[in-house]
């Protein structure tokens, strides 16, 4: 079957009334958490995981995916209006977006953010549709050695592209891998590190882990920061950008989409990196006059288009390889596993309706977002005004409900409290939690693939370097680590992160 007829099949799934509804719920929730600073898509997806139990797999994925790309839309609103990014991937949007708002051009800034995101989202959907199937075919040929090396590469690349200390991030990965193998060992049936607790036999609940770290610990950190939000109160004006604005932005949106789509596929990529890179690129190549940093509309269009494109193409490694490129994708893999679906290249062949339904729902979801967002913008603005002291108790409650209902035991509620403490210590020690989550999800898979690779070769570990593909992946991992240690690369990386 060719791609278009597959997309048609997917559209049939995505257009089912129930799935339309879940898509709508997903994008609305996503926009909501995107708009609200202090809660992100990772925690939201984690909170909703228990709910997805009751749904068919396709509906669950459609809703959760909507949260992720919906959050990219919502984040820009907060960035433009109150100069605080609602979402980390909107940090750059705040630079020019808030300037525009102060110049009385908040409307066009919001409008171009939505339009740029929409165009990028649609194009990125095609990228996913055309790129994922061949990649999955390649991945089906992978043996355990290749898989192991691929995971090593994915984890290392995720670290290198993240901010902060690389050594600490690698340590966080290893800690994540170790936490991931707590529970019953699939091969021997031995209970590892469970302290005789039957509740730990299935391993540490990753809903409790994520909610503790990304939910409660974040709340605690936000409460001590005590920042006062400077809310933009002047009129928004017309939200539609002028024809002139659109013409100026067209090239920018196209370039940013392309760049975002490429960066989204890389492990460790996704929305955040894409937005930084696209802004940096536009500052160099956009047609003069360039007024970046002082309210250039292209400074809003570029990161917004790029983060949406990146958000969508980051589904490619998740779907085709079963390897998460960022914590939200790790949550999606968790959702698949809850549904009893082993993530990996076989999903696309065994459950085509799942994959193509998800892809097609991205089209539908992007359309919903642009239709809903422009008229709903005033609702979102009203929500930004809700003070944090009314907001965080709700986060607290939803984290507790989510933790409880994953297994219907209070054990996971206590576990959430424990991981909240852990997460807070990590925050204070500046240890990025994202690599921990990636390692946590991949831990059991990595152990299993290593075991198989070694078993097949009678304990000879050289298999990892004699298989050409496996060798290439390991060499690439080492090269990445060495590259980041090189002073020149380190300098540009830090500069890029600081902009």
């Amino acid at each position: 079957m060719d791609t278009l007829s597959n997309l048609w099949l997917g559209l049939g799934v995505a257009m089912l009334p129930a799935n339309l509804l879940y898509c709508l719920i997903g994008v609305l929730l996503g926009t909501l958490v995107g708009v609200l600073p202090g809660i992100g898509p990772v925690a939201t997806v984690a909170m909703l995981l228990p709910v997805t139990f009751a749904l068919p797999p396709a509906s669950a994925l459609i809703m959760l995916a909507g949260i992720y790309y919906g959050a990219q839309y919502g984040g820009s609103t907060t960035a433009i209006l109150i100069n605080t990014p609602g979402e980390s991937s909107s940090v750059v949007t705040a630079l020019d977006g808030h300037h525009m708002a102060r110049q009385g051009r908040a409307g066009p800034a919001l409008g171009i953010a939505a339009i740029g995101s929409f165009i990028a989202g649609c194009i990125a959907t095609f990228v996913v549709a055309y790129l994922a199937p061949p990649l999955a075919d390649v991945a089906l040929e992978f043996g355990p050695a290749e898989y192991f090396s691929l995971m090593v590469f994915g984890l290392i690349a995720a670290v290198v592209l993240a901010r902060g200390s690389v050594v600490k991030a690698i340590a966080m990965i290893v800690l994540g891998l170790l936490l991931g193998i707590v529970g019953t060992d699939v091969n021997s049936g031995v209970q590892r590190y469970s302290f005789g607790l039957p509740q730990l036999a299935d391993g540490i609940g990753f809903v409790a882990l994520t909610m503790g770290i990304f939910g409660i610990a974040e709340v605690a950190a936000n409460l001590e920061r005590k920042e006062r939000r400077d809310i933009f109160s002047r009129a928004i004006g017309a939200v539609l950008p002028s024809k002139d604005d659109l013409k100026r932005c067209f090239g920018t949106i196209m370039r940013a989409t392309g760049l975002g789509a490429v960066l989204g596929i890389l492990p460790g990529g996704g929305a955040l990196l894409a937005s930084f890179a696209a802004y940096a690129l536009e500052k160099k190549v956009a047609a003069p006059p360039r007024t970046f940093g002082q309210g250039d509309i292209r400074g809003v269009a570029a990161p917004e288009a790029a983060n949406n494109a990146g958000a969508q193409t980051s589904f490619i490694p998740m779907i085709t390889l079963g390897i998460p490129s960022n914590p939200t994708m790790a949550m999606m893999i968790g959702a698949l596993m809850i549904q009893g679906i082993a993530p990996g290249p076989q999903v696309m062949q065994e459950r085509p309706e799942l994959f193509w339904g998800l892809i097609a729902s991205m089209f539908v979801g992007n359309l919903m977002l642009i239709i809903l967002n422009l008229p709903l913008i005033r609702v979102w603005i009203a929500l930004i005004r809700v003070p944090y002291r009314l907001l965080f108790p709700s986060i607290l409650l939803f984290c507790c409900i989510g933790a409880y209902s994953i297994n219907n035991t209070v054990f996971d509620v206590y576990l959430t409290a424990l991981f909240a403490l852990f997460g807070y210590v990590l925050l204070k020690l500046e240890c990025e939690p994202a690599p921990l989550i990636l390692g946590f999800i991949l831990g059991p898979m990595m152990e299993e693939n290593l075991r198989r690779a070694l078993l097949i070769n009678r304990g000879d570990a050289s298999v990892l370097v004699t298989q050409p593909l496996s060798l290439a992946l390991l060499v690439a991992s080492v090269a990445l680590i060495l590259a980041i240690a090189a002073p020149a690369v380190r300098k540009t990386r830090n500069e890029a992160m600081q902009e």
Partner: protein
Amino acid sequence: MQLLRQRDFWAGAMFVLFGLFFVIGARDYTFGSAAKMGPGFFPTILGFILAGLGVIIAALSFFTARDPLPRFVWRPLSILIAAICLYGVLLPNVGFVLATVILIVLGAKADPESRFLESLVLGVLLSAFSTAVFYYGLGLPFRLWPAS
């Protein structure tokens, strides 16, 4: 001691402790051999790697000596944690509706600016809302009220 005020010294120490915990714990499990990895194989190796990374991180902090350990503000966090744990105790006993109100009222105290009456109203509203959504809407199996 200058070193004890370094953020990364403590980060490194944390990783060393975790690494050793997993290595020591793995001694109870069969190590096996490379050809037949036992349940202790993977955690032992990773535990050593983690401890080694921890030593590197702590050692590097000795040379860079830049980032001091930030102040820990325990009040909000401990109130949140207390509220969550109390919720765990209350939920099976007094039921979802009351436990939720108590969670919100207590949890709101994590922000010193919160007012009692305001958080009580918020708690009642959130309790009603989530009972409607999660119990009646999604059919999650909670006990709603105290056991009679």
